[in-house]
């Protein structure tokens, strides 16, 4: 596989001055163009200041903060720890369940709360369903970025099923506020297990369908392979995480490597990019890791549904959560990578300082590094393959 690998595409730019054979200089202008904040392929309100030489990107300067909602400031002003959860929902609004879990986990670890086994299992089911839903959007919108509209709507069709499951669980379709400190807001509704199982059987063939339509489509591969190559060492140095890092072949998944929940009880594999269609760590690798992770998530969900224990869905926690003066950093694996919460408590009922380490924020910071020397259309491919959610980048 590695022998036939072609080199990543890097175009020769000639910014500034060109010399003709007779020694006269030809001045060429670079064009500075604003991609966003309102642009179809920036996935929200991201503004990229792009320096272009013709169609070739000389430099990219991301400007973020258009969706800054002062999450951390808000958190400091809550009257108790529970109130932060709805705000966590709104950070990465495509994988709210994962956000809630990360925050709940941080507080639980700080207060040394043990949650009942049923809660752990349900949390895994929810988080993995959410991961599928989130990856579906990532994959679908990536199709749009590449000009294929149909995969997007197919992905949305399947995501609707997941949202239906969430809706019957907690009444909300986007921002669930379901995972609470010490447990869940309420138990699963009757019939959920059957419906979730039905979803798994329904969904598995659809991944194959998606692969046929998009993943292995010749044009799609041509557009994404060898584009925006992120070498593993650069990725690690920049703190990139999640599928974006795994696309570079780094076998690193916090569900396995920094265990939380009960992921160790299930059989599943960490999917990494292998450089099948081009250089290791290109856009296609990042994309296909997401597709394969959906399959793994289905596996986890099926196993978790099979072993779902009966029991309480709320641990015995004090009425008012007042952790002792302490601090903790807890990281979990969301659909986008390492979501960490650094919570500093001063013994009062609200966090003294809450810092969210958003995976998309960090993943985005590597963008200029990997997109220099590509073409304008490749920049769209790269932004899409990094899979950012601006709600999380800006918090």
């Amino acid at each position, binding site marked *: 596989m590695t022998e036939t690998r072609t080199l990543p595409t890097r175009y020769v730019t000639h910014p500034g001055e060109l010399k003709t054979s007779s020694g006269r200089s030809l001045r060429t202008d670079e064009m500075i163009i604003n991609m966003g904040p309102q642009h179809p392929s920036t996935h929200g309100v991201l503004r990229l200041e792009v320096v272009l030489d013709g169609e070739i990107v000389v430099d990219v300067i991301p400007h973020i903060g258009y969706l800054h909602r002062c999450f951390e400031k808000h958190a400091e002003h809550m009257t108790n720890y529970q109130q932060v959860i709805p705000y966590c929902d709104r950070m990465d609004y495509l994988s709210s369940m994962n956000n809630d879990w990360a925050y709940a986990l941080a507080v639980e670890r700080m207060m040394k709360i043990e949650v009942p086994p049923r809660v752990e299992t349900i949390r895994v089911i929810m988080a993995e369903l959410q991961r599928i839903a989130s990856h579906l959007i990532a994959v679908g919108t990536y199709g749009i970025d590449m000009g294929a509209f149909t995969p997007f709507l197919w992905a949305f069709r399947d995501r609707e099923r997941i949202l239906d499951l969430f809706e019957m669980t907690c009444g909300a379709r986007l921002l669930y506020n379901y995972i609470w400190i010490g447990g869940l807001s309420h138990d699963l509704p009757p019939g959920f297990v059957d419906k979730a199982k039905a979803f798994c059987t329904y969904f598995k063939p659809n991944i194959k369908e998606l692969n046929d339509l998009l993943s292995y489509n010749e044009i799609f591969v041509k557009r994404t392979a060898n584009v925006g190559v992120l070498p593993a060492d650069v990725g690690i140095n920049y703190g*990139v995480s999640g599928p974006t890092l795994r696309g570079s072949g780094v076998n690193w998944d916090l569900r396995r490597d920094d265990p939380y929940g009960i992921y160790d009880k299930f059989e599943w594999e960490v999917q990494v990019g292998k450089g099948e269609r081009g250089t290791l760590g290109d856009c296609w690798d990042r994309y296909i890791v997401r597709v394969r992770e959906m399959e793994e998530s289905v596996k986890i969900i099926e196993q978790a549904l099979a072993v779902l224990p009966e029991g309480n869905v709320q641990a015995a926690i004090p009425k008012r959560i007042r952790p002792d003066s302490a601090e903790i950093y807890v990281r979990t694996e969301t659909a986008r990578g390492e979501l960490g919460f*650094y919570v500093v408590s001063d013994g009062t009922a609200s966090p003294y300082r809450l810092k969210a*380490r958003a995976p998309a924020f960090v993943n985005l910071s590597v963008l200029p590094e990997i997109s220099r020397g590509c073409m304008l259309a490749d920049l769209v491919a790269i932004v899409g393959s990094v899979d950012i959610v601006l709600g999380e980048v800006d918090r």
Partner: protein
Amino acid sequence: MTAEEIYKSLSAKFGEALVESKLDAPQPFLVLDPKRMKEVSLFLRDDEALQFDFCSCVSGVDYNNGKLGAIYHLASMVHKHKIVLKAFCTRENPHIQSVASVWGGADWHEREAYDLLGIIFDEHPDLRRILLPYDWEGYPLRKDYKVPEFYNGMKVPY
């Protein structure tokens, strides 16, 4: 490697740069001299036995006693150990040496800490505001921050 061993190998090399340490906490941390962040970080990253290649998070904290801190959560993907570094400075003189050249990921985190808490990271390649508008005044996450009534002459409605 346990926190104990990490502390030992660091203190052997950078005796005075280690200001303080707390190794029995659930997440043990070392307090470093804010002016010598970079050399310690380089050692932490490049030493064979340590290999802290992954800078998870940089958080700025205002301790409300005139003290600001930057907290670095480091992890090693190779050895799977973790450590927390802390560096403190005062509100009057909020300077900490940047580690953006050591871990690329620290770049934006430090910008954010500068943006929201006003910690100035020396030697940072591009220390600009990141989340707030470039013409914003003040550092909102400082505990003594007063929400402005006007922004650019516009009344802030609430």
